[in-house]
């Protein structure tokens, strides 16, 4: 009995791999966008610009305080009421990038704050301008603290990307959900889905752990 189902499941393996590709595409794009925006916000948050800091802080709280599923429903169902029609894929990338940016912003700003104050003073008295201070003095040191949790954050991002299946993005989770209607063996179908996620996330978790050990200081919350 299980043999037949297993065979059917193996036949739909290309379908799952297509889903895996979609998962990688959504989370990869969001990873790039989220990292760029997150670094920018994090640098502003560690700076002395009061109003901008407060705005970013409030936004980060709103995003961290609400479920991602609700965020994506808001983006997907409410924007059309204002005449902005988004396909599922761009909506997923925007929501996921924003989520990533909010978490990365926190990681970056606490990384920058971990650099001893004397370093910045020394950079100022060496005559470096704001950008040079950041580029040559602060960020290279902050990166030691930022890197391990950043890789850990990418794992969370890939896992959170499963939620975009709820608005119809054809990722691995969605592929499993559609397949289980046809092959009624939840253990087999979602076992395969889990295995595919595991294949991506487990190595990343190991890398994050190794980085944490190598760069010394643990900075997990």
């Amino acid at each position, binding site marked *: 009995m299980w043999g037949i189902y297993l065979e059917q499941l193996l036949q739909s393996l290309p379908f799952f791999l297509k889903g895996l590709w979609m998962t990688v595409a959504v989370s990869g794009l969001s990873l790039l966008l989220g990292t760029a925006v997150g670094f920018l916000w994090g640098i502003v948050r560690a700076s002395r610009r009061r109003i901008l800091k407060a705005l970013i802080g409030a936004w980060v709280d709103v995003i961290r*305080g609400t479920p991602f599923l609700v965020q994506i429903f808001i983006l997907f169902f409410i924007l059309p009421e204002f005449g902005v029609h988004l396909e599922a894929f761009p909506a997923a990338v925007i929501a996921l990038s924003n989520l990533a940016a909010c978490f990365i912003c926190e990681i970056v700003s606490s990384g920058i704050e971990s650099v001893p104050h004397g370093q910045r003073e020394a950079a100022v008295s060496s005559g470096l301008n704001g950008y040079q201070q950041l580029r040559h003095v602060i960020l290279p040191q902050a990166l030691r603290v930022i890197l391990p949790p950043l890789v850990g954050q990418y794992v969370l991002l890939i896992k*959170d990307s499963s939620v975009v299946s709820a608005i119809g993005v054809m990722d691995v989770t969605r592929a499993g959900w559609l397949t289980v209607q046809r092959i009624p063996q939840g253990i087999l179908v*979602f076992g395969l889905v889990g295995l595919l996620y*595991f294949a991506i996330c487990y190595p990343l978790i190991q890398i994050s752990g190794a980085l944490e050990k190598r760069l010394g200081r643990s900075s997990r919350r």
Partner: protein
Amino acid sequence: MLETFNFRVILEYLPLYGTCLLATLWLSAAGLAGSLAVGCAACAMRISRFPALHWPAAVYIESIRSTPLLAQLYFLYFGLPSLGVPVSETTVGILALTLNSGAYMAEIIRGGIQSVAPGQIEAAVSSGLSYLQRMRSIVLPQAVGITLPPMLGQAIVLVKDSALLSLISLMELTRAGQILTSERFMPAEGFLTSAALYLSIYYVLKALTVWSRKRLIHLHTG
């Protein structure tokens, strides 16, 4: 935006939001209690020297951490019936939250135990305390204080994760938004109200986290 926002509908659906808020709180609390129990057991097994205890716990923790909650939820939701185990949606939902959060709890507890300075354990060993005595009187009292803030952080994650239970049609806050969308075609009112309620739970838990961090500093310095 605000002139089209229909507050009357929200008032009309207020009882629904009340029930759903309670449901979210109840589901998260059940998941939290369950995950504390599972987390303690999994952590005790993981730090054990016996391979028969160590490996199952390690496999459980790593496979939960490497897969999304939604996949785990569907695994149980579609998987248990296909094994011939009849379970209600509520049971599946709480079970998924418990198993998922339990793995993270186990790691938090392990971090707390390992953060106790090795010198303390050496001192306890040379005072002739047994393993259980060491754990009970030296390690655990210190570990509890250290693990409190990250456990509250995990509680925040749990509340947000419980939103996924709406996808197996459990009644909770996110489901209330979906109901307003399908019955009245008002997704803005529906989901923004849900989001506001989640946010209020978040701020309470965040305040508790800040408080526990401050208390922890007092404990260590005072």
